[in-house]
């Protein structure tokens, strides 16, 4: 476990504390785009990703994202309920088309994500170092694993149905089979400490089957997630299939959990202490729910093969059983 992961959850960091820290009292930030020359770097504005576009939050507000040593990395959008509403609308619009793509096509698009991430390995590695406070070697492993995870799930697109589906030998003259279908719009509360690999490990199994996702990024470490959306935007993933909101969890999670047009919620990255309250909100439209592990997601070894499974795809699919008589 990296020291960064043990640091107190950002949800507990007060806004007051953030305000108190000014640019003057800190070291230069690692992402401040200085390349050793006199040239002043061009910084990136980290924005939301909704419906294939990169809007700023409707709140017009931001929060400071700090590295593990408390240095400013960037301002991130402080997303709101309305941003989630916009994301839900975009996801609902994108869902039927994405679900109707052939499995082969979804497979190639997920593979394309891996291809484009590969070309940005340096950028992701730098951002993971900055976000998680890990060394270059470990960051490289984490980024490599994230890319490989897309490749792994890409291969499942046209196979999971053969694992999770069945032909049922009913007692009668009927042809009967059960097929998995995507659940619809699925909310994802990304793991808080694993900024990139944790997110990819949860997101890939949601979208590979044809679901559309609304992601609440890690609060303290959202920047690699935002960069991932830039990859998604250029990987032939249709706009709206993945939507990303950054911001303060205490202002966002309940609105995602309670949204009546969201069909599922992966709360694996949620603070388990909040589990009951969030789960109650999710009940209102009978959301499919993945609960946080008892010890929280910070302790998960995301590099392990155990962090990938076709049964994770199964968390957000519906089984449809079809009957037809056999006869002349």
């Amino acid at each position, binding site marked *: 476990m990296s020291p960064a992961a043990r640091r107190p959850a950002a949800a507990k960091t007060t806004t007051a504390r953030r305000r108190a820290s000014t640019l003057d009292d800190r070291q230069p930030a690692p992402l401040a785009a200085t390349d050793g020359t006199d040239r002043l770097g061009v910084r990136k504005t980290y924005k939301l990703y909704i419906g294939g576009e990169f809007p700023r939050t409707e709140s017009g507000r931001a929060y400071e994202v700090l590295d593990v040593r408390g240095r400013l990395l960037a301002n991130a959008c402080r997303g709101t309920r309305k941003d989630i509403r916009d994301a839900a609308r975009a996801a609902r619009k994108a869902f039927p088309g994405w679900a109707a793509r052939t499995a082969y096509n979804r497979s190639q698009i997920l593979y394309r994500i891996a291809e484009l991430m590969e070309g940005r390995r340096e950028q992701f590695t730098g951002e993971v170092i900055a976000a998680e406070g890990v060394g270059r070697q470990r960051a490289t492993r984490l980024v490599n694993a994230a890319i490989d995870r897309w490749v792994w799930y890409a291969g499942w697109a046209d196979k999971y149905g053969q694992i999770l589906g069945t032909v049922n030998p009913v007692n009668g003259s009927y042809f009967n089979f059960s097929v998995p279908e995507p659940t619809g719009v699925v909310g994802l509360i990304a793991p808080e400490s694993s900024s990139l690999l944790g997110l990819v490990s949860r997101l890939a199994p949601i979208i590979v089957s044809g679901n559309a996702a609304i992601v609440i990024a890690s609060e303290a470490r959202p920047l690699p997630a935002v960069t991932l959306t830039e990859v998604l935007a250029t990987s032939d993933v249709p706009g709206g299939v993945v939507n990303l909101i950054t911001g303060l969890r205490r202002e966002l999670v309940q609105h995602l959990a309670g949204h009546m047009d969201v069909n599922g919620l992966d709360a694996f990255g949620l603070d388990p202490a909040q589990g009951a309250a969030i789960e109650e909100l999710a009940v209102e439209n009978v959301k499919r729910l993945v609960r946080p592990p008892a010890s929280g997601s910070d302790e998960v070894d995301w590099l392990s093969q155990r962090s990938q499974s076709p*049964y994770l795809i199964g968390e957000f699919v*519906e*089984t*449809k059983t079809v009957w*037809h008589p056999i006869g002349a």
Partner: protein
Amino acid sequence: MSLTKKPETRPAAASWGMSARGKVPWEYAPAPESTDHITIRPEYGLFIDNEFKPSRPKATFTVINPATEEPLAKVARASRADVGRAVTAARRAYKTTWSRLPGSERAKYLYRIARILQERSREFAVLETMNSGKPIKESRDVDVPLAAAHFFYYAGWADKLDYAFPGRTPRPLGVAAQVIPWNFPLMMLAWKIAPALAAGNTVILKPASTTPLTAYLFADVVRQADLPPGVVNIITGPGEIGMELVTHPDVNKVAFTGSTAVGKMIARAVSGSHKKLTLELGGKAANIVFDDAPLDQAIEGIINGIYFNQGEVCCAGSRLFAQESVYEPLLDKLKARLSTLRVGDPLDKNTDVGAINSAGQLAKVQELVQSGIEEGAEIFQPDCVLPDKGFFFRPTLFTGVSQSHRIAQEEIFGPVLSVLTFRTPEEAIEKANNTPYGLSAGVWTEKGSRIFKMVNAMRAGVVWANTFNRFDPTSPFGGYKESGYGREGGLHGLGAYLDLSPNETNGRNGR
């Protein structure tokens, strides 16, 4: 196109020798099923540790026959402490016997149960009909055989769990709390208990308050099968007791079948726990008939879809969508067929539609039918004579129904069909999916590619194409959206009773 022609001037009903709204011109002789071989005890205790025990403090309530309103027996009303006793018994049995048995031994117990249900099938069928009001031909030909088949199917899984989920080593969950409804009392019992025991769990089942008698007769099957004490426990009481049961901290798995409203209450109550939960909730199924459908078969499917078990079926085809070009001939045939349904004594072997399960349910059906009339839909009911006593309701259909009517939106759970129309497949899809429910759907057309288009587009867990209301233990059943989650039946139904998280050999983390 011949299918779009005007309906024949002679109503189709003429072929049965009656007018569309006419009475059957002959009398049927009564054909009552004998009840003299049925023993109902005056009073039933709670079935815990293979013994009937009075509730503590002792309290009972009366169970009646909904077709006669006569009392059948008194059953124990469990207290909170009784729930605790039942959970303790189930936990002890889980620890000391059931989870330690080899799967092959669990399998043999389940095969025994299946066989005993088959041997005593008529006894179960008659008692089921007396207690629930469903026609004897249904309890005899559907409920009881399917219950036995369910045990037989899951018996075979008990020693094959290692082959069921590639890459995983399945483990039982522990103690399962199961709450079931009154519409298929024995069949729901089998759907719940068979996979739970096959997977190695022990159970506490709470049948519905109005229909506990076949569950308590099943207790005698448990005795005959020599099942170890505490493996199957059955308790009765009102909804609060069901809630006590599912929220008990020593319960690991909760399975509920019933209304969406109660399902949500249960889901809220177990929020934040690590109980595995499956819900099979309400429905408002669309039954879609295209103009190229085999009409006579479709008529039988529509009738079976909504009047089977008095329409008290979560997956009932309660919304008929008729393509406009076939609407008139379809409706004529439907009204004629409706007029031939025999409504009355559930124990009569010729009865098609029996009694509504309770006065409360009858009032709910009446209220919703009244709303249909008030909202402007046109009602049709055949002229049939209803018995003087008992909770009976005429098979009913409404035409001129719009999507916004309550009878098109709410689950009625009674013999009431709402007829709507559509022009194009896209319109049918849009209307059929326009509901928070998603349990089942039906499609009638002779065109194969259209069947698959419709099947793919239905947001529902079971889709019957050119048939309706078929069930089988090998066939997963369950809902999309607010009709619940998890499946019962088949391999999927087995997974609902197993811990499939990665274990030491295939991982501690992740899922």
